[in-house]
């Protein structure tokens, strides 16, 4: 499979926008150096968020006409780090700074069976995969899970296209996705060891699936996932970072990541992927007031539970219990030598 991991920047013009679901904005971009975007690719956009330039990643839902039309789907997240609000403000004719397609979630070839699992807006990473699997004549299942039908983008279209290969789970209709059943069914099938799962969605869903996958002794390399570190166990809230070695405290707004806030405050920290995968920005935790919402996929579950370290790029502190708004914000004390 071709893997484009090189990041190069270009401009993209917004061709059209609309809302395929409640709170979801479809943005079609015309890049000035079009390249076909394979299933699983994303683009990074450089966004000016309240005076700070931030990089945000968005899956490519569709690549048409040799990459001359790239469709993104962006959910307006009240708990977002500011990117989605900016994206929802885009109009036809606007110009954005964007990378070419970047591949870190490639669809494999030759598995006996494919299971795609989308939680909520995670579907944006899987639409093109499902289309490709259908064209290949592969054996695949597309699992769509969401809170309410109205917020589930592309739902009708996907059911039309993929028919009974789609399984829909909607929380408020009491048809909930049961992870144990889903993974247990895969583990019990004759194609168990040759089934690949591709998932994208809230980190709690993905963690649950990962635990079930390991518990059923399915091959770990067959479980593929992508996360941009944008979802956690709790809604994003303001919190404070104490840095005793530097004798400083930095406030992290709910729109900002800890890493962004530290950099804005002039603290020099090392980082690389900025999406909770590589572990370069891992730091030791000295103390916590509240809970740590890790949001990364670098630390193991056991490492997360000990609260010994966190990844600056995605981790947050949270009070954990809904308390009165006047309550002290959560805080985390870090060892930053």
């Amino acid at each position, binding site marked *: *499979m*071709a*893997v*484009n991991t090189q990041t190069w920047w270009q401009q993209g013009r917004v061709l059209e926008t609309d809302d395929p679901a409640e709170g979801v904005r479809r943005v079609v971009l015309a890049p000035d150096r079009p390249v076909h975007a394979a299933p699983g690719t994303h683009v990074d956009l450089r966004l000016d968020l309240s005076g700070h330039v931030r990089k945000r990643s968005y899956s490519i839902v569709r690549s048409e006409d*040799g990459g001359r039309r790239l469709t993104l789907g962006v959910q307006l997240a009240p708990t977002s780090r500011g990117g989605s609000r900016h994206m929802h403000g885009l109009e036809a004719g606007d110009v954005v700074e964007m990378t070419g397609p970047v591949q*870190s*979630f*490639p669809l*494999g*070839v*030759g598995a006996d069976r494919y299971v795609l699992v989308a939680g909520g807006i995670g579907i944006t990473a899987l639409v093109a995969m499902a289309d*490709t699997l259908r*064209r*290949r004549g592969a054996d695949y299942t597309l699992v769509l899970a969401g809170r309410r039908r109205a917020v589930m983008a592309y739902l009708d279209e996907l059911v039309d296209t993929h028919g009974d290969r789609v399984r829909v789970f909607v929380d408020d209709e009491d048809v909930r996705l049961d992870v144990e059943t889903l993974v247990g069914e895969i583990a019990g099938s004759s194609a168990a060891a040759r089934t690949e799962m591709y998932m994208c969605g809230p980190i709690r869903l993905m963690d649950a699936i990962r635990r079930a996958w390991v518990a059923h002794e399915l091959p*770990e*390399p*067959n479980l*593929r*996932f*992508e*996360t941009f570190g944008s979802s956690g166990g709790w809604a994003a809230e303001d919190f404070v970072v104490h840095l005793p070695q530097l004798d400083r405290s930095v406030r992290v707004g709910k729109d900002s990541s800890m890493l962004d806030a530290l950099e804005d405050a002039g603290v020099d920290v090392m980082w690389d*992927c900025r999406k909770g*995968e*590589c*572990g370069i920005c891992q730091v030791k935790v000295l103390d916590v007031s509240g809970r740590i919402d890790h949001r990364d*996929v*670098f*630390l*193991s579950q*056991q*490492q997360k539970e000990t609260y010994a370290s966190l990844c600056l790029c995605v981790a947050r502190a949270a009070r954990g219990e809904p308390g009165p708004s006047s309550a002290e914000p959560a805080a985390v004390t870090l060892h930053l030598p």
Partner: protein
Amino acid sequence: MTVLDSPPITAASKIFNFPRNAWYVAAWDHEVTAKQPLARTIADRPLALWRNSDGRAVAMADACWHRLAPLSKGKVLGDEIQCPYHGLRYNSAGRCTSMPAQETINPSAIVPSYPVVERYRYVWVWVGDPDLADPSSVPDMHQMDSPEWAGDGETIYAPCNYQLVLDNLMDLTHEEFVHSSSIGQDELSEAEFEVSHSDREVTVTRWMRDIDAPPFWLKNMRDKFPGFSGKVDRWQIIHFEAPSTIRIDVGVAKAGTGAPEGDRSQGVNGFVMNTITPETARTSHYFWAFMRNYRLESQTITTQLRQGVHGVFGEDEDMLAAQQRAIDANPEHEFYSLNIDAGGMWVRRILDRMLQAEGLPAAAAAK
């Protein structure tokens, strides 16, 4: 991916681009082992070739996801290949299965793994869009492993654009000049030939009747018909199949015994099997073999034929290398065509259409 510029497209581009959506031979089957990965560049992609514990051949990008150290310098460990630098391991699909000093595996950690088909004693690789990799489109080279044929071959590392090798094989008039001591003879440039084509094949047919057999063919006739002397009817039927496989049906039969009409029983028949894999725009892996359908039991004849053709193709190799040097030394000069180039020009047109379908220019980037 190589960035290609787009000069005006002509059918006779001197440095011909190559399609990516195609099967290319990456190696002889025996070259790919479970003991040690093999490093080889195919169509501009450096690959590490190895076998897993089922004996299945694997072709992966020859660069670790981490810091791009060549995996071909690493180890094959059962169903996995291990990077020689920091020990990351990958399965045959290119997925990382082990990372040092951490409890999880980065979900982005993957190395491209390319579709592979093993057929006709070769390992074929598809470096283009994997969704288009249809094993039924592997070019026909069935003589390579048919019980009705015997023979062997070698690989030439040709320091030239792959299309120059295809040109060479699509017009055998050059035998008269390049191979005068073995298979060349005056009648080659005197005999008429016929060219036919479909959308992925080209055939050039040439018969020379009632001629003296050149030394190579006289020896072969005497292997089958001890003490043979006299005139022969000689044929060369060149079959091209896209993107770069050429099988040449060659032979001689006692003159006037009906070979042109289909009765080859009074002759000897060989197939020169050629498949050319672009390594880069200016270098090629040229896999060849000489297969025969007589005296199948004789390893002596197999060895003699392989050595004989080795000598003949050595003459081509020298010419092709010199031609590439002259092309590079004369960038302002164009190619012109002769009547004898008709077969080669049909090949170029087929390849040109494949390139257009992939959105690639016919000319590869200037050096």
